[in-house]
């Protein structure tokens, strides 16, 4: 009876793509890791749907998006603060829903944050390219035919795990859900915790101090590659061009105009601007959820704080799906 398992795209909104937690060991090809802009929400949606955190799911951007489910399946929607309607009825985000085939899933326009994640048990089935289901929008490969989703696209779903597809549906099933304190709300005014970057010395002490004293606006030119920040330029007394060096999601680079850029999931593998600071891994999801007009400040933390913050997020992720998390073991998250 599950011969056809699919998710049909009715309306993709501004930018919907298939993502997982990104590619590994591909920098030597000049290939970006890509993957979900917000790994926390993506992992959470997958765990709720009974998947590994790295399963392929749909990432939407800013505007609303609509899908039709062609399978009896568990689904979950996480990420941006946005309405979720299942067959027109408001439903909880950050919670699993056992659904019958034929229902319509509507994700409303994001009120806060930028990206929603829709996971379906089994995960979306697309050919892995360089080991990942992620769409690299810039390079045009991976995900669904290497491109953003369009209305009418039909995404195949892999066979679900037996437990994630409860029978009978749906009354007898107990949904998995995150407790309120583990749900992210994406404040439009965010403080990102950072460590000093490899090119800290490209800034004078005065400019370094100013980086933390100022607040910046997120420019509308921001993409999945990175956030351009607007504000008063830092006082530079030396060039911020450096010999091209490796880059990563969360890098805070200072352009020659004296403004920070925060690299996100689909960043270039190397860059020629000074990486003055790097966002801690635990705060990369918050950077990924920033939207044009949001405000950002930076605060300096220690390496130990950074590791503890990451461990805290991992515990929060595991809290809604202890069985799956236990099965995957400590440090199950592999896509930083």
């Amino acid at each position, binding site marked *: 009876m599950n011969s056809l398992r699919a998710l049909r795209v009715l309306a993709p909104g501004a930018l919907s793509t298939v993502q997982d937690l990104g590619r*590994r*060991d*591909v*920098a*030597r*090809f*000049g*290939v*970006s*890791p890509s993957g979900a802009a917000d790994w926390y929400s993506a992992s959470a949606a997958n765990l709720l749907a009974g998947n590994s955190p790295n399963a392929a799911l749909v990432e939407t951007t800013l505007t609303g998006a609509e899908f039709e489910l062609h399978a009896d399946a568990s689904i979950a929607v996480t990420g941006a603060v946005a309405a979720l309607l299942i067959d027109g009825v408001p439903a909880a985000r950050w919670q699993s829903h056992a659904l019958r085939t034929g229902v319509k899933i509507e994700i409303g326009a994001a009120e806060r944050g930028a990206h929603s994640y829709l996971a379906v048990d089994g995960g979306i089935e697309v050919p892995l*390219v*360089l080991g990942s289901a992620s769409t*690299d929008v*810039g*390079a*045009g*490969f*991976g995900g669904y035919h290497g491109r953003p989703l369009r209305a009418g696209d039909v995404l195949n779903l892999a066979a679900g795990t037996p437990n994630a597809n409860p029978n009978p549906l749906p009354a007898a099933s107990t949904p998995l859900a995150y407790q309120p304190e583990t749900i992210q709300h994406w404040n439009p005014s965010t403080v990102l915790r950072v460590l000093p970057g*490899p090119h800290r010395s490209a800034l004078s002490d005065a400019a370094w101090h100013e980086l933390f004293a100022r607040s910046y606006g997120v420019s509308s030119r921001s993409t999945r590659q990175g956030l351009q920040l607007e504000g008063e330029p830092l006082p530079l007394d030396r060039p911020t061009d450096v*010999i*091209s*060096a*490796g*880059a*990563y999601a969360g890098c805070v680079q200072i352009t020659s105009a004296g403004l920070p850029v925060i690299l996100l999931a689909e960043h*270039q*593998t*190397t860059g020629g601007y000074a990486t003055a600071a790097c966002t801690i*891994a635990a705060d990369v999801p918050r950077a990924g959820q920033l939207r044009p007009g949001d405000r950002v400040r930076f605060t300096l933390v220690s*390496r130990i704080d*950074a*590791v503890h913050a*990451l*461990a805290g997020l*991992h515990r929060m992720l595991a809290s809604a799906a202890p069985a799956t998390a236990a099965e995957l073991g*400590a*440090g199950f*998250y*592999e*896509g*930083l």
Partner: protein
Amino acid sequence: MRRVWSVCALARERFGDAALDVVGAYASVLVRFDPARLDLAIALACLRGCAQEGEERIVLTPRRIRVGVCFGGEHGADLDDTATEVGTNAKDYVKALCAAQFHVAFLGFIAGFPYLLGLPPELGAPRRATPRDRVPAGSVAVAGTQCGIYPTASPGGWRLIGTTSAAIFDPSREQPALFAPGDEVRFEAVSRIGDAVAEVAW
């Protein structure tokens, strides 16, 4: 440069699956790892060890890649201006470029893009004041002391000297990128774009 390649090779070997990625550039090596799986202090000690031993261990046997290129005209819109700017003509510029031996320093910027070291200093010219919105795939381009080849169409500010029709990047191949760090590269002038292909020798 050899030290970077060597440290990268060592880091890839020693970190194994614990490394999410190893990113070599001109003068740096970046190792991405998950601190939930690998202790920070152990990772730092391992990387320091790689950096020290990388100076002594040269593990590379470079491949030689000959890249056929159609130079100038519609295939290299900036050749004439660039040659004039450095005080020569297009013919001599191409001759000098094809006499040079390049090394792939690393790949970056866009998937498969090789940063080539070895541009003769007298052929170097600054990048264009206004970047192009679209540089065609296969463009052989120079900027400053750097030389590179655009695998796919992309915005770019480098000066376009020629075009190759070699498949620089194809994610469906087992080795998606034509070039790898350490490869020796030479250009050969060809008159037909269909002949502008690449040959790899070990």
